């Protein structure tokens, strides 16, 4: 079973990320059993049925606005935010907004072009679950990659993980 990082630990995870191809309309979809993240469009089309289904999450692409999920957040236990390219940094803002402005306490998972070099930033912005790009790391390499979560021990700014900036957290000598 593939591994990912959840709250700083390596865990097994077999949730599928459902990606529609162009021929599939969200309305006409039947979902196989098992844990799955559905695209936002599928969620919208099948909210009624999907609400409360075990192991169900919704994933948003980087251009999709998390504000649209807000009315449904109570019935969603996990949100995945896609990094189509790791240089596309929109999901950092999306995650931060989910956690701070919209008060979402469920899982926020980073998916797509996810590498260890972003782990530190992702965790700071409120991602608790990091699913590296498929095939990027062996289990052993992922174990090693946990170190990247601790690249910097005392960051300057306030962020989701540390809501106060350094100048409020520490008494700094003049």
């Amino acid at each position, binding site marked *: 079973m593939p591994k990912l990082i959840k709250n700083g630990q390596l865990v097994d995870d077999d949730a599928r990320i459902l990606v529609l191809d162009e021929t599939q309309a969200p309305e006409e979809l039947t979902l196989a059993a098992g844990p799955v993240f559905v695209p936002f469009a599928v969620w919208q089309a099948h909210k009624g049925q999907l609400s409360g289904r075990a192991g169900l999450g919704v994933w948003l692409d980087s251009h999709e606005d998390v504000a649209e999920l807000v009315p449904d957040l109570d019935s969603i236990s996990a949100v995945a935010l896609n990094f189509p390219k790791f240089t596309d*940094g929109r999901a950092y803002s999306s995650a931060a907004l989910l956690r701070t402005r919209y008060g979402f306490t469920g899982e926020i998972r980073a998916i797509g072009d996810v590498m260890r070099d972003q782990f530190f*930033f992702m965790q*700071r912005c409120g991602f608790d679950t990091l699913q590296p790009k498929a095939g990027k790391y062996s289990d052993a390499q992922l174990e090693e990659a946990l170190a990247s979560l601790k690249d*910097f021990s005392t*960051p300057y700014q306030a962020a989701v993980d540390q809501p106060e*900036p*350094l100048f409020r957290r520490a008494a700094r000598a003049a």
Partner: protein
Amino acid sequence: MYRYDTYDQKIVDERVAQFREQTRRYLAGELTDDEFRPLRLQNGLYIQRHAPMLRVAVPYGLLASRQVRQLAHIARTYDKGYAHITTRQNVQFNWPALEAVPEILAGLASVEMHAIQTSGACIRNITSDPFAGVAGDEHIDPRPWCEVLRQWSTFHPEFAFLPRKFKIAVNGAAEDRAVIQCHDIGLELKRDAAGEIGFRVLVGGGMGRTPIIGEEISDFVPWQHIITYCEAILRVYNRYGRRDNLYKARIKILVKSLGIAEFKRQVEEEWVFGKNGPNTLTEAEVARVAGHFTTPAYASLPADDAGYVSQRAANPAFAAWTRRNVLAHKVPGYAVVVLSLKNPARAPGDVTAEQLDLVADWADAHSFGEVRATHEQNLVLADVRQSELFAVWEKARAAGLATPTFGLLTDLICCPGGDFCALANAKSIPIANAIQARFDDLDYLYDIGDIELNISGCMNSCGHHHVGHIGILGVDKNGEEWYQVSLGGSQGNHTSIGKVIGRSFAAAEMPGVIAKIIDVYLAQRQAGERFIETVRRTGLEPFKLGVYGDAAVKERKQNA
């Protein structure tokens, strides 16, 4: 100047370790070129024509003598014996080996320096007035605010992968010496009616292929809120800036497409959530940082040192240097010295390891151990006693750092261009040197007076050609190097974008073209009028006529 505490030091040390590990993985094949690129860029590491190029951050242009010595050491040990001062007050090395970069970064960290965010689509080095703290026209010292913003922007987790690079500049004097109108965010320190400090905020300025002058988004953001306000701007930009087209990805394009009023509305709607939150600055933090920028222990001296007055009278060469390269200081008896990096024998902005070591010694002996880098690619000793100017001049002259041309035609800004840069359309350094060779008569240069000539090797505008009184841009015509000339650009309080005068020129024509432009100016100028003022008054027509001749101008008009 700012000294690191254990927190600051730890962050740069941890960065060195992180980059060492990233470089190891790259060399071991665990990171692809594409994966490594954004990582190395965030550490100022480009792969250029000949070798990697490493850009070292010089926050708001301030250097301590031991940092200058470290730069000299790097130039000597890992490069070909020289460094380059950039138009963003940073330092570049053109020849380091990739494998050596972690070691170089460790050396930098040992003197409280780094290369963090000197490149890449993130918040870059914050630039400012090179005369901060010593200029007579300063209302508020920008340096503490630059440092506060530097810390906020360093490894900001939400803004490490923006649509494009993001540059912030801060100015606190009557005259803008930080080009704030051409930055993604330009901050002007000011006081409100109650005397409280705050910022006028400009947004969406920039050069590159679409030069745009920043627009005012707020006329006063109180100092407590400057971080939350910047965060709101950055968040709107991160979410809505274009990512489909590299050339349209800067914030200026977003601001233009939404219009400043709508952009401001979005920013202030976002700001509601951050304002008064934990990122609100505290008096204690500002006082802590400002405590690093205290007034040095100035002696109380007469306004005019008698020895200095007589040395000037006795030595015309010294007098000439003081007229251009020595500027007034707000403290009586002191002066600001510009050490020129525009020696015609070198590329503009280049400085050798030996020169750097000497400059560090002079800083210790004559200027409280500090040096500044300017965006016009010179170095500055900001606190020299008038009585010591002669000694400084003699040393600088012996070291080739006393070219007495500050602010004159040959004190030009010039990007590395085709000699180094993989993006270049054309070389820029040889054009600069050819112009310097053509205009080597000091009396003539003094007669021409204040003028700014800026050269970029391509539309990216690293050499600020858009805001040069005379701008030169390298263009590619069927694989050949040509140069387009613009006039009327300007930085400072009256920032304007230059206009192209007509067809472009071959390299060999360029000194002659500049000579013709200068001839027109000298013929047209009214008493006391500087070059840019004449261009503004007459428009481009007389210059086109002077450069292309009567027939060519008529013909163009008919074809138009």
